């Protein structure tokens, strides 16, 4: 399989970047997209050229480290899938594949396809946890939680923090990520005592990091590898209005 990669190359955050073309032959349809990039990098090493910087870790869709804009879509052509889960069979022989980094003011480019997502970490630091010492594993039924509540909390807890929601959003809004982190805890009895504080501090940090506001284009829920629904954002808004007006 032969394709042409057009990849964003940028030496460092304040350098000027540009798309650079790489024709590469000998790929297999069974390769993952990241393996194809590895293959390309090996060929660059042999040519004594600088390799393309990109992030990855688990390569099974659970860690959230990979994430690039492939042919105009966050995480590539499929809905609800991480970059590492995309295979070369999703492309045709002879295709040109444009690969760009996540674009958002809050995610400055570090190098090539690697962006700095520490804005997410700083939001997490504002309360995406409970302060109680949990000790050893508690008796499972010590706090009774209805199944539907536990399920809906798990649905948003699935967020892997990859940043695709921000990257695909025309406003670079982090609302899907932040709502997932808030609702995950605020839905559960363990998270409720610090619920308002968490909500206000995390959303304030979201704004300080210069993420945009959500206009419900719903692009994020289509690209989210964890399939988090935008109803999570509406739920965060409901909690916010409740916290502001009713304390």
């Amino acid at each position: 399989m032969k394709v042409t990669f057009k990849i964003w190359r940028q030496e460092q955050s304040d350098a000027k970047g540009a798309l650079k073309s790489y024709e590469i032959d000998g790929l297999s349809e069974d390769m993952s997209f990241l393996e194809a990039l590895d293959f390309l990098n090996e060929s660059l090493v042999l040519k004594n050229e600088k390799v393309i910087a990109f992030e990855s870790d688990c390569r099974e869709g659970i860690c959230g480290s990979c994430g690039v804009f492939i042919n105009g879509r966050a995480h590539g052509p499929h809905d609800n899938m991480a970059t590492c889960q995309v295979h070369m069979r999703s492309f045709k022989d002879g295709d040109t594949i444009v690969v760009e980094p996540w674009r958002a003011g809050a995610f400055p480019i570090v190098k090539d396809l690697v962006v700095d997502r520490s804005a997410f970490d700083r939001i997490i630091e504002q309360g995406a946890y409970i302060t109680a010492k949990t000790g050893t594993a508690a008796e499972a039924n010590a706090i009774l939680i209805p199944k539907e509540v536990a399920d809906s909390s798990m649905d948003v807890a699935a967020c892997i923090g990859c940043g695709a929601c921000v990257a695909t959003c025309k406003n670079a809004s982090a609302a899907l990520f932040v709502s997932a982190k808030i609702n995950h805890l605020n839905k559960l009895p363990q998270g409720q005592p610090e619920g308002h504080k968490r909500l206000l501090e995390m959303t304030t940090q979201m704004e300080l990091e210069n993420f945009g506001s959500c206009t419900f284009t719903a692009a994020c829920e289509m690209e989210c590898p964890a399939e988090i629904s935008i109803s999570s954002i509406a739920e965060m808004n409901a909690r916010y209005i409740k916290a502001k007006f009713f304390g």
Partner: protein
Amino acid sequence: MNLFFRKSIVAATGLFLCIFLMVHVSANIILVFPEATARSLYNAYSTTLRESMLISIVAYLLYLSIIFHVVYAGIITYKNRNSKGVQNTINHNKENSSWASQNMGVLGMLILIFIIIHLVNFWARVKLGIGETVGTDMAGNIDVYEVTFTLFHNPYYVLFYSILMLPLGFHLHHGLKSAFKTLGFYHKKGLSVLAKISLIYALILSVGFGIIPIIVYFK
């Protein structure tokens, strides 16, 4: 003034404008009645509106809503562009979101142009008395029907009034459902019902407003 506040203002004013539009399109139906009935009924209706204290208050709320909706939407759009920064070279956002949702600003600008011309055509003449004097009908009411009838016998205005209802339809289709979500409506089944209601609402409004000038033209 945070993200939530700004967006809630746009949503709340937008919903108020949605209610107004429903009343407006219902009243416009009078225009398609036979001329004798339409003229007296439409003029009597507009006189009632002009003389009502309650409607005057609602009218001021309406002006304020339009201004706040436009100003805050403008601020949000500006800030959001700033948040996004550099755009991707290729973006296939049609594959993950509706065209209307990606272009609410452009659609809103078209609607604003429409509103200004619409106000010049009617509000400025009838309420402010600018331009050609408007006569009265047999019952002594200001003949707003005549203003409408004359305007909609100009094919350019008919085209303008009908075509500009397309962006209105797209804007309302996304805006109505988005406003509810902004204001915290998150029931999942409710949201899918809301999506259908938004579509039906947008269709009724755009087709309703758009077809009446054409009917009047052929009267």
